[in-house]
């Protein structure tokens, strides 16, 4: 991906994530006082399911760009840097996908 595009997408993802994080934190803090049934009921709500999925996919997209920026600054060995970037890429695809599967089939 070219750097300018990466920079712009990083900002756009940040703008999408900010309200989502407010929502998810408020929800989780209040869910921490509630029981299992209410938590299940919460994530079964189609709107919340969609919001949680967006949070994970865009969240990990933001993580991917940010971490490769950090690696660029602190890891000087190119091989280690490449491996680190690939690991983050794999994680940022796998975790949101598992989340989506959990939300649809398991909860």
């Amino acid at each position, binding site marked *: 991906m070219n750097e300018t595009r990466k920079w712009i997408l990083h900002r756009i993802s940040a703008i999408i994530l900010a309200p989502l994080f*407010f929502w998810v934190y*408020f929800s989780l*803090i209040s869910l921490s*006082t509630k029981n*299992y049934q209410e938590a299940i009921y919460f994530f079964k709500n189609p709107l919340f399911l969609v919001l949680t999925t967006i*949070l*994970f996919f865009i969240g990990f997209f933001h*993580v991917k760009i940010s971490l490769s920026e950090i690696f660029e600054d602190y890891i000087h060995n190119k091989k280690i840097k490449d491996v680190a970037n690939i690991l983050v890429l794999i994680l940022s695809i796998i975790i949101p996908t598992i989340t989506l599967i959990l*939300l649809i089939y398991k909860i």
Partner: protein
Amino acid sequence: MTDNQNPLSPHLQIYRWHISSLLSITHRISGVVNLFSLILIFFWLIVLSLGESNYELFLLVINSFIGKFILIGFTWSMSFHILSGIRHLVWDMGYGFEIKTANISGAIVIISSLILTIIFWLLGRGYI
């Protein structure tokens, strides 16, 4: 390489911290912490899918002293990163670079992130 006279910067032992550099590195650290909070939410969903008895145990951990400490820390980290991120976005648009303005906006970010964390917990826990 033996004759390298370039100053090492920033030399952390004698480095005088400024609000700008403090916020810059905290923005990064809080970003990484937010990644862990995302992983905690992921874990939360996994436990939820494992059934009621596991979830009850998870709630017990989350509501313990350490659990609350971690959750409050994550809430602050998220609040800080978002507010500091807004500050960065304003810079990206070309405003707020004067030293005085940057210092004031930095102080506003720190104070508001603390206030926001308190508001989140009061609202989320149903005290307000």
